[in-house]
């Protein structure tokens, strides 16, 4: 049973043409590929930030987009939590204000999310009153993850969540990510250009190159021989 079915085509004025189709059946699906291959565009299409020229996206049985039937849900209606590479915390709100932003905008019909539990699991209690500019990179990442979780998403879209972090900090954030993925069991699409991250977190991985899916399978198989651990696509080729 797949939680995401996607078949989209989009052409950027600059030239890159995206033509991707895949089904996500495992809880954590990795998206691997070089910079500029269309990984972030893929997440943007699902989140409703980028509208493809044509295609269909179905999340948990609900069509988010179907250009033939004229369906295109607004980002607020899609209920997907997107975690950006550079966090995008709201600078004029405190950490608590950021966390409560999505929480206060959830529909009453949606299942409740326990604020205290999210704060506890991601160890944010000490940070609640602080402004985002005073946080370290790792703390910002945890706050952004908690904010996405508290919006009650049906799926998490993680765009290179570990890229900007140094190795010790990355190991700590990996632990938090694993904790969140195992406790909440939210279907997740994890974009990364580092093979080791996907081997550790993803159950299934698709490989994208020049806007097309070129391979798919368990990370141990798809990312096996030619890509060494801790090396990115660009370094490996």
């Amino acid at each position: 049973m797949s939680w995401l079915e996607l078949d989209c085509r989009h052409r950027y004025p600059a030239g890159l043409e995206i033509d991707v189709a895949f089904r996500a059946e495992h809880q954590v699906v990795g998206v691997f590929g070089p910079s500029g291959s269309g990984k972030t565009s893929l997440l943007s299409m699902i989140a409703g930030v980028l509208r493809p020229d044509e295609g269909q996206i179905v999340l948990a049985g609900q069509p988010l987009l179907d250009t033939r039937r004229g369906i295109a849900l607004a980002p607020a209606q899609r209920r997907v939590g997107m975690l950006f590479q550079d966090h995008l915390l709201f600078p004029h709100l405190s950490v608590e204000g950021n966390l409560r932003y999505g929480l206060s905008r959830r529909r009453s019909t949606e299942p409740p999310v326990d604020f205290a539990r999210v704060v506890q699991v991601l160890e944010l209690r000490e940070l609640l009153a602080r402004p985002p500019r005073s946080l370290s990179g790792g703390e910002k990442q945890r706050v952004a993850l908690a904010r996405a979780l508290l919006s009650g998403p049906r799926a998490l879209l993680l765009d290179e969540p570990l890229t900007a972090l140094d190795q010790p900090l990355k190991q700590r954030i990996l632990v938090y990510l694993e904790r969140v993925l195992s406790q909440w069991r939210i279907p997740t699409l994890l974009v990364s250009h580092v093979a080791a991250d996907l081997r550790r977190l993803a159950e299934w991985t698709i490989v994208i190159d020049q806007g097309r899916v070129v391979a798919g399978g368990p990370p141990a198989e798809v990312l096996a021989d030619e890509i060494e651990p801790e090396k990115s696509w660009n370094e490996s080729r």
Partner: protein
Amino acid sequence: MTVMLSPEEWSALTLSFRVGVCAVAASLPPAILVAYALARWTTSRNWLPRATRLALQLVVDLPLVLPPVVTGYLLLLCLVPGGPIGLLLKRVCGVQILFTWWAAAIASAVVSFPLLVRTIRLAFQNIDPRLELAARGLGAGPIDAFFSISLPLAYQGVIAGAVLAFARSLGEFGATIMVLGSMEGRRTIPLAIYSLTNRPGGLEQCWRLVLISVLLACFALAASEWLERRQYHRELA
């Protein structure tokens, strides 16, 4: 030589403040909307949106380059009892505003509108548009995202624009004299200075109003610059 203001000078000062406050208060909401539209109206492949944006920009900026007397003349045509606005006000409200301070406020609002829009537009352009997308992804609608994210982040630019527009209103002469005239007890600061200089010994008498104008202009420029710098540093933080 006395530093105390004469009744005529007091009248000019209070009228100028009344006109400036009303002009800024009335033009602020549309200026925020237009500035936001111009800031977020991204380049499109189609010619129609591009042409519409260009036309809007042209209309907004026109009073900046038109001689104020020409702006005043066009306003006069609109505000006379048979003109489009004059006729509407006469029929709907039963009032005639030409040669009242309301007409001066409209003239000031029109002339200072481009300054207001430019300053606010820059403030919006300096905000990462992905913050709004992040808010939309967390369940906020477009209006909610505007009021909860974009406007609070741009507020210093909005205040800076309002201060500049107020200062411009205080100095407005050409358009104001066309729609207000220059009658005793109904003169703004620039009109009073002009009137005094046309009287015998008036050049010596108008120094107090000149000094007030210079001080207000310096204060407005300093305040606007300070607010814009604060906005810039906040974005860097």
